[in-house]
């Protein structure tokens, strides 16, 4: 069956923006440098402009501040309108990248099990993904030897997922009182994951979802869809999210 992989959707990625003053701000003596500061966690779409001189220190306009002020205010309003249209979505305390609005895990220990033990082709990539999570982040992983219980954080399963094109998925089956996820069921589809790079990548990907990550990145395993090379690690940005359960 023919499938066309869709490129990663383009969204604005920036942490600061320089606006060259035009007519509305032509009399301002220095080029305005606008920093857009994130207001609060989770409010990544709302940014506050701050005017600084080019050198970086905050300085009031010294001459004709009233007329300049009116023009400056007009430019602020115009720039704000532009920002609303642009709707930048990729910046948060962990740097440029997706805001990762998934359900974070319930603690620093990520225990896991198999709902039914799969073939070695899958136990190897699942084990590798769990080991990588343990080594690359502050999360500690441990396998539940006696099988899955209601509180096991990650329950792995290798099974045909009926919807074509879905390589794996993660479903939070129970949350804590604080809204974190207490337990995920993770499925890997053997019909879609026909080579080790894709098995390894999707195992890493779904494990990322169990730690609150959403899609994003290009060399990161949290990108969507098939890969042609080994892609089984998280970006620094994603590791920041995991380490802070955010």
């Amino acid at each position, binding site marked *: *069956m*023919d*499938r*066309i*992989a*869709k490129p990663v*959707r383009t969204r604005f990625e920036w942490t600061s923006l320089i606006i060259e003053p035009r007519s509305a701000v032509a009399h301002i003596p220095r080029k305005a440098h606008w920093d857009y500061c994130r207001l609060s966690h989770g409010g990544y*779409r709302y940014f506050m402009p701050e005017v600084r001189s080019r050198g970086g220190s905050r300085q009031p306009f010294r001459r004709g501040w009233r007329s300049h002020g009116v023009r400056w205010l007009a430019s602020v309003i115009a720039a704000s309108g532009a920002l609303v249209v642009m*709707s930048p*979505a990729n910046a948060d305390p962990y740097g440029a990248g997706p805001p990762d*609005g*998934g*359900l974070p895990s319930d603690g620093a220990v990520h225990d896991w*099990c198999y*709902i*039914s033990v799969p073939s070695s082709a899958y136990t190897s990539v699942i084990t590798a993904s769990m080991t990588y999570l343990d080594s690359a982040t502050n999360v500690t992983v441990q396998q539940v030897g*006696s*099988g*899955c*219980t*209601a509180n096991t954080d990650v*329950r792995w*399963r290798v*099974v*045909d997922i*009926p*919807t*074509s*094109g*879905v*390589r*794996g*998925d*993660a*479903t*939070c*089956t*129970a*949350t804590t009182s604080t*809204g974190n*996820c*207490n*337990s995920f*069921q993770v499925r890997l589809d053997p019909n879609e994951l026909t080579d080790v790079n894709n098995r390894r*990548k*999707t195992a890493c*990907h*779904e494990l990322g*979802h169990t730690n609150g990550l*959403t899609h994003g990145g290009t060399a990161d395993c949290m990108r*969507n*869809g*098939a890969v042609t090379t080994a892609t089984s690690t998280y970006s620094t940005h994603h590791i920041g999210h995991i380490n802070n359960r955010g």
Partner: protein
Amino acid sequence: MRLGIVTTIAVAGVIVSYSGCSTSSDDETSGSAREFAQTFRGYQADYDEVQSADILAERAFAVVAAVPVSVSEGRSYNINADNSDPYVTAVVEYQVTELLSGELTKEASDRVFIEMSVTGGFASSDIAQTLPVGKSALLYLSPASTKVSDPILIDETAGRPTGYPLFVVGPQDLYIEEDGMVFSILEGEVFQDATLEDFRPGTGELPEGQPLDR
């Protein structure tokens, strides 16, 4: 003159109270597409995103235009070693308004039943409260797995009347139109200034969406 003012105020009062009752009634029986999408925040997938509705149609069993009707508890799965506390899905019933591609059985040509994940923090009853009843939807359907292919499945026939097939949808397979926008329910995306026409087979490239804050 005074009588006229009094009459005007009285009529206005009746109109206000009537419209208030109507809104309240709607609120009690129907949620919104945005709220509905929120209940699936705990579901994430790794999938091959496609840009064309034609490709979605090619890989679907059938494509229907429909309206959401109701939610009920669906099939259960044993996901614990001791078979305690099974995972129970939800089933959403849709009234089919148009079959766009594929073939459905006689029963399913009228109503389709979709198995949905019930994700942490929500129950079937929560999904029912958020269901945007009567809103226009577009679904790319795949048959649900059967007990033969899914050994942890407990009750194959749950969630729909006898004889009706059960379907599932993938991340790009369920769209609901509301207030001049289209919501991709499982992807958690909103498409501003879009209609379901933009997502039908034969319409070319899919629109560009924005992630929902959820």
